[in-house]
């Protein structure tokens, strides 16, 4: 039997998280700037205390590292819920459920874990993920031009990165650099770089459609990193980057779906209340079809996301499923938010409602974590059972 309905336990957890979002996050958010992505430290501490009490703090952190023992399907259901507020697409519940941080560090050696992973999990250190470069982000195997050259016990890094989140406030970063010019994806190495390394600079803020979040541009000018800070093996860094990109697509898609669900709720509520020419909008066929099209997009994305999560939970390959879920959710949710704005009319584009923020931020989701075109490449590659390029 194929059944995507949540189990009794999952339904209880989802209900608990839904109440948390509506009773704790919505009232708090009503007092914040419409573009805000963080809350005051004391509010954050209060929210974290609640999620800890729920036993759900640190979702995504493996149980052996102190995270709750919650399977990936349940985590996905939770991610759908935690996105259902104004800041939810990029700051679900303002980080109250914690996060996995830089998952690559779970593969670090013991010394690296002591210096970076454990302090990060304790909230004492922050890290950034430095992959994308001005030469491109969709094809990192070829686009990475930042170079690292071995010099005794060190590696000397030169180059630049762009669209890197959180680098300005980080204590360290995971940086991908080319260590063999002739080997394509087999010539990339992953380094852990301390943010106070001489020669490492956060040059500027990169402003985007998101006001409350920004990327940064980084430069490396003879930045010296000890060989002990190589994460994994020399020239095997691409696999580390790629693994992260595949896994991240499921919660990324779930966030899109959560926002779409909330936008649809708002559209239906408004269509029932708003009257034009003597009748509620909900009686108009044009509006009904928009709502139906929204539901089709939502359910399609939901099934694709849960199918990907179920395969991941079974330990089966899920690259195609994750790519399909990411594509369907980001593109479908964009359409849902657009239609919800249309139903709301002029109010839909004001900052009085969250729709305009979701509209801007959702546009980024069709590019972030691999644009739709790359998702299609990934799926095509698997369907033809070969590397196309």
């Amino acid at each position, binding site marked *: 039997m194929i059944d995507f309905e949540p189990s009794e336990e999952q339904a209880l957890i989802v209900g608990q998280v839904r109440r948390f979002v509506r009773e704790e996050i919505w009232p708090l958010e009503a007092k914040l700037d*419409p573009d805000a992505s963080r809350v005051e*430290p004391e509010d954050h501490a209060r929210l974290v205390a609640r999620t800890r009490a729920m036993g759900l703090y640190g979702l995504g952190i493996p149980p052996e590292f102190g995270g709750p023992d919650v399977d990936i399907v349940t985590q996905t259901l939770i991610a759908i819920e935690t996105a259902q507020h104004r800041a939810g697409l990029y700051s679900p519940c303002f980080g109250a459920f914690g996060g996995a941080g830089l998952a690559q560090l779970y593969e670090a050696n013991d010394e690296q874990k002591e210096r970076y992973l454990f302090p990060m999990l304790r909230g004492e250190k922050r890290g950034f993920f430095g992959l994308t470069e001005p030469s491109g982000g969709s094809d990192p195997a070829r686009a990475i031009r930042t170079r690292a050259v071995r010099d005794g016990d060190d590696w000397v890094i030169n180059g630049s990165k762009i669209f890197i989140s959180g680098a300005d*406030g980080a204590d360290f970063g995971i940086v991908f650099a080319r260590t063999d010019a002739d080997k394509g994806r087999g010539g990339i190495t992953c380094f852990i770089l301390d943010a106070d390394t001489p020669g490492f600079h956060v*040059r*500027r*803020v990169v402003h985007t459609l998101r*006001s*409350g*979040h*920004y990327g940064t541009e980084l430069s490396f000018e003879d930045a010296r990193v000890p060989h002990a800070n190589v994460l994994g093996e020399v020239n095997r860094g691409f696999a580390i980057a790629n693994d992260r990109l595949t896994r991240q697509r499921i919660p990324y898609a779930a966030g899109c779906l959560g926002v779409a669900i909330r936008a649809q709720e708002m559209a239906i509520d408004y269509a029932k209340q708003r009257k034009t020419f003597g009748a509620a909008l909900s009686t108009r066929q044009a509006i009904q079809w928009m709502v139906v099209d929204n539901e089709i997009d939502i359910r399609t994305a939901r099934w694709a996301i849960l199918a990907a999560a179920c395969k991941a939970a079974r330990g089966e390959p899920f690259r195609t499923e994750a790519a399909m879920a990411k594509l369907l959710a980001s593109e479908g949710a964009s359409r849902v938010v657009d239609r919800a704005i249309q139903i709301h009319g002029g109010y839909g584009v004001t900052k009085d409602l969250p729709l305009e923020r979701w509209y801007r931020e959702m546009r980024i989701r069709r590019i972030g974590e691999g644009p739709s075109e790359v998702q299609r490449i990934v799926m095509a590659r698997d369907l033809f059972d070969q590397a196309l390029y």
Partner: protein
Amino acid sequence: MGVRMDKPWRELTAANVAALGAELGVYQLADAEGRIVRIGYAGGRTLFGLRSELAAALEAGEAARFRTEVTAQYLSRYEELLMVHAADHGALPVGNAADARRRMGRLSPG
């Protein structure tokens, strides 16, 4: 748009504030010597955008001069201006003590 705000300073007077639009954006306040005393933003919940913010600063007697920049990315621009000020002067403006409570980012804007 440069990393630093480089528009000319204007006197913080009722007439200059009344002439401001109600757009969202960022602003800097300075004393009579041109030292920046606070960086702020007019966000989506302000009643009349920059005009409301600067009117409040005038009423509080916070500064002698001001300059503004209209931008929809007021939050990220605000963060950027704070970080640039910290990089240039080694600390945040005196009026941004509340921002010092949280962990600020670092920039090396050159």
